[in-house]
C-alpha cells in the first residue's frame, strides 16, 4: 500500500528552509538552460525565417556567403531567361543585389557597428513577399533614397524617416521603414543597387548575388540543373531558406556549447543541493520512517514516497525557473553574424517545447537527487532506527 502523498506535501512545508535552498538551485539551473536554448533558437529562427522556400539565391560557385560571391551582369542576363523563374508584369522576378557594409553608430553606446547595406532591384518587394513597408514609402529607382529595416531603425542612430545620412561617397535620405517579420533583413538598410555600387567605387558590372522568385518551390531543381550545367556560368543555386539556415550554424554552435557547459555544471550543483536536502530530510525523520515500516508499509512504498517528495520539489523548481525566464521571450538583442561581419538583431524565442524540456530536466535532477536518499531511508533496519534518540 502506498504512503499517502499528503504526508510528503506536509513534510516539505514543515522543512521550508532547506526546501527553498533546493528549489532555488533547481529553478536557477532550469532558467539558464531554457534561456540559453531560447537564445540559440532565436538566432537561428531569425536567419531561417529570412529565407523563403520559393526563392533561390544564386552565388558564385564555392562562395560561402554573399560577401565572397560575385555574379557578373552578363551572367544575370543568362540567368533571367532560365526556366523555373516566376515572371511578373515587368519581366522575370529577379533581383541582382549588391551587399556592402557601413559603419553606423549604435544608439546604445554611440560606437560604430557594421550595418549590412543591400542594393536591390526596384521590384524586390514582389520577390521577398513577406516584407512590407510599415512607415513612409519604398525608395524610388534612381534616387539617393534608402529604406531601413525595423530593427536597424531601433538599433542605430540617424535611421529615422526624413533624416539624411552619409553612406560611401554620397548622402541618402531615409524614406521608409520595412518590417521583415523578425528576419535578418530587419537589420539591413536597402537602396538602389546601381547607386550604392557607385557610392562605394564598385564596378556596376557585378553584383554579389541574384535572388529569384521560383514558379513553385519544386522548380528549384530545374533551375539548378539548367544553371549549373550551362558552360557560360560558374554559379551555385541554393534555396534561400537553406542559405540562411547554414549561416546560423557557427553562432548557434557557440551559444549551444557555452550554454550547454554552464547548464551541465549547474545541473551537477543542483543535484548536490537536492541530495543535501533529501539526505537531511531522511536523517531528521529516521524514527518516522521506521514507524511507518513498523506499521506495515513496505520498503518500496518508502522509496516511492521519498522519490515523490524529491520530484515535487524539483517540479516546482522547474516551473519556477521557466516562469522566471518567460519574460525574456521576444526580447530583442543583437550580436555579430560571423558569416557577414555585420550586426544582427534577434529575439529570444521561448516555445512550449522548450519549457517542457526545462521541466523534464528538473525532474531528472529530482530523480538523481532523490533516489540515493530514498534508498537509504528504506534500507535502514527498523529496530535500530526506532531505538534512536
Amino acid at each position, binding site marked *: 500500500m502506498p504512503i499517502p502523498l499528503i504526508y510528503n506535501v506536509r513534510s516539505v512545508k514543515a522543512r521550508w528552509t532547506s526546501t527553498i535552498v533546493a528549489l532555488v538551485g533547481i529553478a536557477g539551473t532550469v532558467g539558464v538552460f531554457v534561456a540559453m536554448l531560447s537564445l540559440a533558437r532565436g538566432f537561428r529562427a531569425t536567419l531561417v525565417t529570412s529565407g523563403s522556400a520559393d526563392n533561390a539565391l544564386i552565388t558564385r560557385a*564555392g562562395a560561402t556567403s554573399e560577401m565572397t560571391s560575385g555574379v557578373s551582369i552578363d551572367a544575370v542576363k543568362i540567368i533571367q531567361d532560365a526556366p523555373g523563374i516566376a515572371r511578373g508584369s515587368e519581366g522575370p522576378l529577379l533581383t541582382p543585389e549588391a551587399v556592402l557594409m557601413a559603419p553606423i553608430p549604435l544608439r546604445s553606446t554611440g560606437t560604430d557597428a557594421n550595418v549590412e547595406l543591400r542594393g536591390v532591384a526596384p521590384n524586390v518587394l514582389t520577390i521577398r513577399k513577406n516584407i512590407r513597408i510599415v512607415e513612409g514609402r519604398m525608395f524610388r529607382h534612381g534616387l539617393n533614397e534608402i529604406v531601413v529595416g525595423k530593427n536597424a531603425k531601433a538599433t542605430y542612430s540617424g535611421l529615422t524617416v526624413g533624416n539624411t545620412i552619409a553612406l560611401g561617397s554620397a548622402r541618402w535620405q531615409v524614406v521608409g521603414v520595412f518590417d521583415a517579420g523578425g528576419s535578418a533583413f530587419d537589420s539591413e538598410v536597402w537602396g538602389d543597387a546601381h547607386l550604392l555600387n557607385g557610392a562605394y567605387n564598385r564596378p556596376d558590372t557585378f553584383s554579389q548575388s541574384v535572388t529569384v522568385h521560383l514558379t513553385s518551390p519544386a522548380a528549384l531543381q530545374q533551375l539548378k540543373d539548367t544553371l549549373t550545367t550551362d558552360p557560360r556560368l560558374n554559379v551555385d543555386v541554393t534555396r534561400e531558406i537553406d542559405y540562411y539556415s547554414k549561416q546560423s550554424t557557427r553562432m548557434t554552435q557557440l551559444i549551444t556549447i557555452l550554454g550547454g557547459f*554552464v547548464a551541465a555544471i*549547474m545541473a551537477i*550543483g543542483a543535484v*548536490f543541493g537536492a541530495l*543535501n536536502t533529501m539526505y537531511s530530510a531522511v536523517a531528521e525523520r529516521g524514527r518516522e520512517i521506521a514507524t511507518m515500516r513498523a506499521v506495515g508499509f513496505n520498503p518500496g512504498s518508502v522509496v516511492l514516497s521519498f522519490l515523490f517528495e524529491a520530484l515535487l520539489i524539483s517540479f516546482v523548481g522547474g516551473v519556477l525557473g521557466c516562469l522566471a525566464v518567460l519574460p525574456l521571450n521576444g526580447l530583442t538583442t543583437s550580436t555579430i553574424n560571423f558569416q557577414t561581419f555585420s550586426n544582427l538583431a534577434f529575439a529570444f524565442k521561448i516555445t512550449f517545447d522548450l519549457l517542457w524540456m526545462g521541466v523534464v530536466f528538473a525532474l531528472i535532477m529530482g530523480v538523481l537527487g532523490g533516489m540515493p536518499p530514498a534508498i537509504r531511508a528504506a534500507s535502514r533496519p527498523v529496530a535500530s532506527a526506532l531505538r534512536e534518540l
Partner: protein
Amino acid sequence: MKYSRLILANLFRKKVRLILTVGSFAIALVLFTFLAVVKSAFSRGEEIAGADRLIVVSRIGLMQVLPVSHADKIAAIPGVKAVTHNHWFGGVYQDEKNFFPQFVIDPENQRKVMTELVVPDDQWNNFLKDRQGAIAGKRTAERFHWKIGDRIPIKTTLYGGNSGEFNLDGIYHSEKPGGDESQFWLQWKYFDENVPAVLKSTAGWYVVKLNSPDDAVRVAKAIDEKFGNSSFETKTETESAFAAYFAKQFGNIELLIITIGSVVFFTLLLVTGNTMAISVRERTSELAVLKAIGFSGRAVLFFVLAESIVIAMAGGFLGLTLAYLAIPVIGLALTGLLPPLILSKSLLTLGIGFALLVGAASGLLPGIGAMRMRVVNALRRA
C-alpha cells in the same frame, strides 16, 4: 595545531554532507573560472593589442579596399616606424566548419610590424622564395596536424578557378602569451596576380607600427588628413580600439552569459553558506558544552571558522583542479569559434581568494552567534 583533531573530527562526522558541501563549492568555482575565462577570450583582442600599432581601414566600410600605394605615403609620415598591408582571404579549408582567419600579407614588412609573431629565419626565407607559400599559426597547424612542406588546398572564389593550393613553409608562434596563433598567411604578390581587376594593387587594411605609443593620436590624425577628400578616405584607430569594435559587436551575448553566470554563482554560494550555517546550528549544545568546560568565546569562534574555511578551501582547490582539466577540453570544442581559453595564474589566485572569502563569511555569522551565546540558555534548549 593542538585543536586540529577536534576540527577534523567535526568535519567528518557527516561524511555525505561534507562531500556534498565540498562538491557544491567545487562546482561554484568551476563555473566562476569558466565564465571568467570565456569573458577574457571575448576581449582577448583588446588585451593583447600592441599600444604602438594603428589600423588603417577604408572610411566607408570594412570590406572596402584601399590602393596599395597608400603604404608609401603612410610610411613617409613622421613617427611611423613601419607599415604593412593585409587582405582578408576568406577561403575554405575542406569544410566551412574548419574556420581560421586567412590573411594575405606583405612579406617585406610583416615581421617589422607584427614583431611578436615569430617565424624561424630559415622557414621565413623559404616562404619569401615561394610565391605559393604560406605560414600557419601554431594553433591552426596543430589543429589540422599540418607539417612543414604540406600542400594545403584552400577553396576560394577570388582566384578565377575554385581552389588555391599553398605550400606550408613555416609555422609562427606568438611571443606574447595569449597572442593569436590561428592565422594563415599568404603572399600578396601571388594574390595580386590572380585576383580580378577590381582587386589588383589593393590592400584590405594597413597596420602601422609607431616609434612611440605617445604618437598614436597625432599620427592617426595625420594619416586620415593625408587621404581626406581623396576617393579613398581612411579611418585610423589604435589596434586595441579596432579590436574593441569587434568585441563590442558581440556585446549583448557576452553580457548575457556573464549576468546569468554571476546570478547562478552567487546562488550556489548562498546554498553552500546556508548548509554550513545549518551544520553549526545543529551543534549549538555541543559548543555550549565546550564553553562550559572552559574554552573561551574566541576559541569557539575559531573552531567554527576553521571548519568552514577548510571546507571552502577543499572545495576551492577541487574546483580549480577540475576547471584546469576541463577548460582545455571545452576550448577544443570551441576552436574556430572563440580565441583560445586561457586559465591564468591570477585567475586561479582570484578563485582561491573567493573561496576563502565565502568560507569565512559563511562561518562568521554562526560562529559569532556561538561566541556570544549564553551557556546556560544554550544548554537548557538542548
